[in-house]
């Protein structure tokens, strides 16, 4: 029980990080980006690539499995992931945004997700990869609950990022513009805010968070080209459960999805775990489509 709780919070916090980026792009850019989860894969593999090129793997800090190199690699990966998001937006999404059927953009993101996944497969191969072969000793927090130091780090980092993002959205000019754009794009334009800049920063923030989520996922589970594809449904479920465009909601949604996944194993065969986010998603859509906390705009048309 206790172990399922700890595992659920851990996966939940990684889902939350990915879902924040997704909910921001869904709320501000107004389309469901099927390629968002591939940004997670991309970020995770870029960090691996940086480590492989520099050849610096060693030097764990304290009880953690990683050291300064991985932290620096994550920062570089975040930049590279933001670059990918901006390039894709420039080449594919922006030309299609003016299309009469706005689902064309959603569909193109579906195609882009396939391309990104396959390019990663082509470069890095299909087998599982790890950032470090250091063995970690689980710490016993209390009877019946063992956690890896890395997992505690993941939780702490998620918390810090969420708080920082909260202040960014509440206090800074850019953060306010982002929220305003999600709520009322016409009013934002009338007020002379450059929406292009806001859109660009939405991509950068969403992609950077995706990269961090990818590295954390790779650190706690393993790296595979399919990780994004497997995270996509949990991300959507979390974002919609929390209310599209609602950052706080995405975090709570991510935790609920993570916990539901890990507790489901107690009741149903583990093979069905991946269907749990879909059940949550359907339940939300039937009962409360605007999500638990309501979006920046509701789910209804």
């Amino acid at each position: 029980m206790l172990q399922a709780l700890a595992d659920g919070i851990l996966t939940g916090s990684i889902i939350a990080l990915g879902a924040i980026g997704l909910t921001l792009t869904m709320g501000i850019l107004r389309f469901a980006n099927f390629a968002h989860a591939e940004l997670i894969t991309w970020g995770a593999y870029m960090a691996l690539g940086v480590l492989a090129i520099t050849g610096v793997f060693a030097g764990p800090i304290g009880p953690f499995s990683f050291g300064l190199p991985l932290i620096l690699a994550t920062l570089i990966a975040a930049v590279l992931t933001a670059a990918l998001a901006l390039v894709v937006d420039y080449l594919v999404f922006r030309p299609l945004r003016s299309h009469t059927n706005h689902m064309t953009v959603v569909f193109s993101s579906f195609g882009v997700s396939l391309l990104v996944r396959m390019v990663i497969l082509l470069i890095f191969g299909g087998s599982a990869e790890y950032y470090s072969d250091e063995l970690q000793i689980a710490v016993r927090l209390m009877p019946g609950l063992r956690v890896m130091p890395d997992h505690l780090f993941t939780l702490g980092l998620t918390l810090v990022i969420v708080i920082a993002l909260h202040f960014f959205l509440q206090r800074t000019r850019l953060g306010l513009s982002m929220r305003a754009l999600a709520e009322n794009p016409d009013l934002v334009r009338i007020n002379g805010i450059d929406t292009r800049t806001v859109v660009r920063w939405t991509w950068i923030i969403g992609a950077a968070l995706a990269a961090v989520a990818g590295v954390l996922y790779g650190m706690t589970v393993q790296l595979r080209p399919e990780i994004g594809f497997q995270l996509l449904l949990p991300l959507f479920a979390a974002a919609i459960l929390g209310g599209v465009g609602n950052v706080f909601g995405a975090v709570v949604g991510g935790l609920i999805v993570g916990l539901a996944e890990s507790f489901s194993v107690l009741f149903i065969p583990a093979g069905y775990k991946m269907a749990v986010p879909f059940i949550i998603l359907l339940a939300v859509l039937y009962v409360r489509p605007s999500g638990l906390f309501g979006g920046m705009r509701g789910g209804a048309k």
Partner: protein
Amino acid sequence: MSGYIAYLVFFLIVALTYSIVVMGLNLQWGFTGLFNAGVVGFFAIGAYGTAVLTGPDRAELIGGFGLPFPVGVIGGMILSTLAALVVGLATLRLREEYLAISTFGIAISIQLVALNFDTLTGGAQGLTGIPRPLFATFGSPGAYNLFYLGLVATVAAVVYFGLQAALHSPWGRLLKAIREDETAAASLGKNPAMVRLQAFVLGSTLMGLAGGLYVGFIGYVSPMDFLPILTFQIWAMLIVGGSGNNRGAIVGAVGVWALWTMSGFAISRLLPVEYQSQGGAIQVIIIGLLIVLTLLFRPRGLIGEAQSVSRHVS
């Protein structure tokens, strides 16, 4: 020479089966603007439904009812219809994105059921020994394949002409009206959510029909035949052929399936063994590029939707 013809027959059976799926998707996307991200799920339900209903009885399985093939196919179609209703009813009153996400989800869930519900689906091994309709009547596999090609072509033709008739009916015009301007259609007293649900469910039922035909031909089902990549392939067929045009859907199905099989053949011949998995990735990248580049540079596809204006204007 006869080897090539036999292969061509085999190729056409599969391509025409897919063309039925593409026409179903065309009804959803091309004519109604609904994004189905889980095409493979509805195809798989039809296939598994048919396999369970027509398969031979086995002690370890729930299914194996040994029913006649047409009954099995209809059963599979009904199951696809029900699956479409589950996601359709949940989402069609909401923003279009939610349908896309839910269809993606149901396809993943169906894949999990296929893999894990061993007593129904045979798990990873799948179900084998599914009877092929009228197989005993034909002396040789070659003759049988020719018969089956005729069967699939007939069904595809019926679907084509049926859809054409529906699309030229008031209902078909209503679909386009809703796709182009939902508010205007609603202001004329039409119910967009209801009409969209009809188009979505009918399209998914056609995918189930194709799944049943597929099983009848290959005689077994396994999760390996229903991988997510199939959804992308079907989409590529529709987009390349020209969404909004059923002739385009058939041309796209045959063309993209030809491209897929030929590229697979080329990769297996030309690339050394150690690069085969990368070759597979390149094959999929071709599909992804087809989708994205067609959307960007030739949104009408090869044939595309015919311009329609009122017959009073000319």
